[in-house]
């Protein structure tokens, strides 16, 4: 109660003083009324003022009162320079907001533990090896039989959990329904119990559901899918779900916040591992393997022996599989078997998105931190200038007895006010921008999804950032102010250069940071431009792609008849069929052997295409002919130029004709005869160099010459209308009405697929360009302010110089020389920093090197130009200085 009354008294200090005075006044009156001498009565009190001060301090929490006074004073200071204060708050808010937003993304994707019990005991298994084609790879996927061997090998110390990636899969809720896409993950039956998860409805998968093929035709929905797709309908239990020719029964809904272990992806449906036909195959690595230490096992002592044990199991398993590498050389196989098993902590989940965006987010974090630093330096400069302008006031305060601590507090209060205002504004910015950036991460039809809660982690980070900003802003000016020497300052300044020296150092720092941001952003923007302008070699114009599935598979003749029907539809120009679209992220390779030799060390990639696919894609033929309807695979093949160069080396020359040459897909396979050669086109990834590619006819036959059924393929349709998607619905309808088992599972355009290839580059280029512009603007403003201030301060000097006959050029030189020296110094530091940073993110560049001359020239020019523009007003002001006026004032 007492503390509270003192706090409230502090808030209403003025009123309190009046009350005390009133009481004392009454006392004196009473004394006089009772016959005391008025003069004596007053004297007994001494000075009323001192009396009041003594009484006041008893009734008030002094620290709070002076703090409030500081805050009020700081607020008045901010209000006095409205424009600068608003600019300071906005630039700080931009910096703080971007930093918090970047933290939210980084934390959500990389650091935040999964919402499971004992996430800290979860590890993921991977193996580092030299691949069959001589490249070092880290493989995180495992075959189920090997998983089972490993699980049994360590079962007394740890549990192994298998979880497949949540791939977009065609599903149907009843056989009549249209097909839809859902993210389906296959998980071992022990996952839910080991993660300590409780169902929101029904029950979750248990080890009993995962005993063997067909043992558990059960599906668990994620809470998110239940909410989105079924509106939390409790009657969803018992419904059947069709995937391919399998039927599953919905038995439960997972807990609300568990979205799977793949950060960035929300799993819709969980199925038992053994229900996937891949689970029985020795040679297919298709799911991740997690390791959960049993409680009480010490990771520092238990992990290494376990790793060695599992390495041995892995080697035994892989050795028994070497029969699969028929034809590979002994040395290759030995190198392949020399695998290193690794455990990595997986408490924060594991996903491709993490791998792909780790560096990207690192760069983003670096850039926003730099922007914040630039903004802080700017505002600190502004405050230094203000403090310098107030140095006489400060000196006066010190000389009449203000504590230096109080002075420091005065300035810290001002910077705290700025930081607080900026944080509030920044919080709004962060709340909006983090989900906004996340939306841009993946194609719109397949968005990346992350939980971005604004919980204590984010709040703590934001608060820490605010404190940091307060210190960055206030510490230097505060230290300067507290070191003020009253005598010197009141005499008119002992060293008028000292604040400028500090501010010049700040300019160098700012330019270095700004250069770094600009340098990185020019690298990213150029990468993006080069990637986007990479010649495709095929046309994306008016090309509709209908990805189509046939549950149990349909014969090529059905597919061809469907293509024929599509061709007859109005608005359709031409139709062709391909196994999958180019740049659709699907790639399948195959060994190549020429003339019965063992397979070559590099593989080739292939695509099944129908006749006229090349002309529909506008891919020309260098020589030879297109496929004909009677061509089958194996039999005929069309290859690209890189294929010829790779597999027929030494025979390149104008006289060499690959047409008619043959190759086989691995040893002892049927012959394929090259009938045509095409130019190179990007296959699955725009960033990669050209791969050797061969096309084979869509109609495949088995070794008894019977046609092979096809499960999925893509119709490539060249439309007459400008917007190919306008036809998508009617053509999808047309295919469904034929009732031949074909169903469209996804429709897109070739143009969208190409665009989706550059999403990451586009995102980082856009953000980098934005932050570069902000950094440049802030640096420009900072430069302007410092120079302007310095000209104001050196008015007297400039006036004298002019009076004694200095030329205009001389004046410009003394005003700008040291600033441009600082810019040069900062620029050099920026280049050094830039090279360091660029090495870390090299993998994000496309055909760009940090050492390219124009990559350094571009930011340097931008900074110089900004500097020129920013210094112009100050220079003009210096030139307009009127010597007589200045000297008269002095």
């Amino acid at each position: 109660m007492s503390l509270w009354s003192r706090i409230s008294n502090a808030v209403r200090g003025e009123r309190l003083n009046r009350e005390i005075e009133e009481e004392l006044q009454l006392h004196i009156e009473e004394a006089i009324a009772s016959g005391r001498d008025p003069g004596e009565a007053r004297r007994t009190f001494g000075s009323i003022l001192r009396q009041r001060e003594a009484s006041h301090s008893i009734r008030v929490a002094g620290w709070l009162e002076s703090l409030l006074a500081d805050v009020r004073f700081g607020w008045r200071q901010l209000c006095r320079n409205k424009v600068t204060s608003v600019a300071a708050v906005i630039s700080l808010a931009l910096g703080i907001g971007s930093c918090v937003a970047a933290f939210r993304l980084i934390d959500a994707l990389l650091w935040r533990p999964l919402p499971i019990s004992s996430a800290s005991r979860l590890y993921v298994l991977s193996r580092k090896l030299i691949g069959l084609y001589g490249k070092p790879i880290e493989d995180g996927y495992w075959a189920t039989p090997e998983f089972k061997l490993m699980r049994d090998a360590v079962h007394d110390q740890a549990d192994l959990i298998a979880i497949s990636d949540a791939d977009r899969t065609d599903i149907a809720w009843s056989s009549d329904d249209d097909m839809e896409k859902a993210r389906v993950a296959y998980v071992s039956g022990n996952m839910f119990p080991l993660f300590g998860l409780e169902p929101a409805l029904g029950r979750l998968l248990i080890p009993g559901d995962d005993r063997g093929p067909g043992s558990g035709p059960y599906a668990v929905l994620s809470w998110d899918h239940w909410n989105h797709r079924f509106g939390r309908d409790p009657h969803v239990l018992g419904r059947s779900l069709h995937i391919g020719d399998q039927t599953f029964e919905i038995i439960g809904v997972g807990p609300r916040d568990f979205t799977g272990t793949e950060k960035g992806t929300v799993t819709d449906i969980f199925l038992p591992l053994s229900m996937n036909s891949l689970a029985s195959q020795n040679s297919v690595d298709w799911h991740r393997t997690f390791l959960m230490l049993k409680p009480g096992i010490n990771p520092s002592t238990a992990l290494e022996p376990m790793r060695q044990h599992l390495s041995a199991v892995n080697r035994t398993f892989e050795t028994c599989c070497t029969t699969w590498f028929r034809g590979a050389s002994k040395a290759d196989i030995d190198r392949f078997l020399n695998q290193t098993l690794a455990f990595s902590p997986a408490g924060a989940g594991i996903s491709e998105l993490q791998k792909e965006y780790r560096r990207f987010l690192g760069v983003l974090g670096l850039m926003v931190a730099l922007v914040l630093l630039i903004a802080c330096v700017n505002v600190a400069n502004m405050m230094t200038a203000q403090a310098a302008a107030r140095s006489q006031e400060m000196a006066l305060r010190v000389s009449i007895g203000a504590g230096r601590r109080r002075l420091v507090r005065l300035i810290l209060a001002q910077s705290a006010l700025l930081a607080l205002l900026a944080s509030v504004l920044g919080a709004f910015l962060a709340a909006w921008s983090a989900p906004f950036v996340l939306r841009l991460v993946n194609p719109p039809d397949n968005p990346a999804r992350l939980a971005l809660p604004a919980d204590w982690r984010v709040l703590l980070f934001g608060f820490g950032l605010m404190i940091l900003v307060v210190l960055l802003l206030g510490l230097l000016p505060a230290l300067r102010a507290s070191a003020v020497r009253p005598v010197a300052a009141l005499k008119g300044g002992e060293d008028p250069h000292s604040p400028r020296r500090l501010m010049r150092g700040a300019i160098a720092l700012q330019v270095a940071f700004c250069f770094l941001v600009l340098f990185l952003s020019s690298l990213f923007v150029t990468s993006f431009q080069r990637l986007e302008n990479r010649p495709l070699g095929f046309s994306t114009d008016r090309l509709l792609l209908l990805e189509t599935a046939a549950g149990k598979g349909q014969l090529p003749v059905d597919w061809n008849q469907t293509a024929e029907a599509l061709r007859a539809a109005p608005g359709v120009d031409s139709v062709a069929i391909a196994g999958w679209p180019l740049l659709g992220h699907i790639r399948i390779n195959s060994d190549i052997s020429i003339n019965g030799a063992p397979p070559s060390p590099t593989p080739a990639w292939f695509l099944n295409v129908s006749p006229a696919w090349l002309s529909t894609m506008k891919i020309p033929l260098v020589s030879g002919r297109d496929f004909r309807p009677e061509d089958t695979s194996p039999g005929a093949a069309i290859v690209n130029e890189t294929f010829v160069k790779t597999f027929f080396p030494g025979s390149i020359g104008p006289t060499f004709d690959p047409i008619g040459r043959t190759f086989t897909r691995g040893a002892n396979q049927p012959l394929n005869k090259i009938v045509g050669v095409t130019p190179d086109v990007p296959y699955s990834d725009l960033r990669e160099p050209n791969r050797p590619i061969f096309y084979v006819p869509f109609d495949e036959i088995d070794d008894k010459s019977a046609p092979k059924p096809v499960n999925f393929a893509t119709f490539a349709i060249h439309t007459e209308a400008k917007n190919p998607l306008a036809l998508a619905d009617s053509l999808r309808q047309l295919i469904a009405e034929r009732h031949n088992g074909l169903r469209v599972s996804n429709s897109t355009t070739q143009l969208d697929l190409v665009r989706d290839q550059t999403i990451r580059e586009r995102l980082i280029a856009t953000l980098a360009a934005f932050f570069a512009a902000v950094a440049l603007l802030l640096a420009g403003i900072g430069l302007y302010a410092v120079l302007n201030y310095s000209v104001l301060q050196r008015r007297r000097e400039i006036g004298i110089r002019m009076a004694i006959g200095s030329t205009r050029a001389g004046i410009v030189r003394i005003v700008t020389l040291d600033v441009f020296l600082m810019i040069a110094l900062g620029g050099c530091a920026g280049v050094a920093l830039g090279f360091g940073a660029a090495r870390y993110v090299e993998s994000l560049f496309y055909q760009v090197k940090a050492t390219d001359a124009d990559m350094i020239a571009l930011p340097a020019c931008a900074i110089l130009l900004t500097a020129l523009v920013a210094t112009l007003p100050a220079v003009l002001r210096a030139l307009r200085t009127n010597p007589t006026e200045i000297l008269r004032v002095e």
Partner: protein
Amino acid sequence: MAKTDALQGSLDLLVLKILSRRPRLHGYAIMAAIASTSGEVLRAEEGSLYPALYRMEEAGWIRAEWIKKDSGRRARIYELTAAGKKQLGAEESRWQSVSLAINRVLREA
């Protein structure tokens, strides 16, 4: 310094005692009461009375209230709280034991 402490201690005791007998007095009345009941021997200095009053108010021993006087002026009057009564008891017995001790010293010496 020690002198002020001793004075303060006894001033608190006097103020509390006066307020326990005659509640709701303002500052001047308290001072006058101390003077009259002590037969004009003890005088509370104005300079220490008010700080002492505020201190005791913060400590929660007395409670203050603004009232309108007949003359139309406002006056701040004080009265004892429960905690103040307890404190008075403690102060009184402390004073008794101190004065007893001093008397004993005076007698023996």
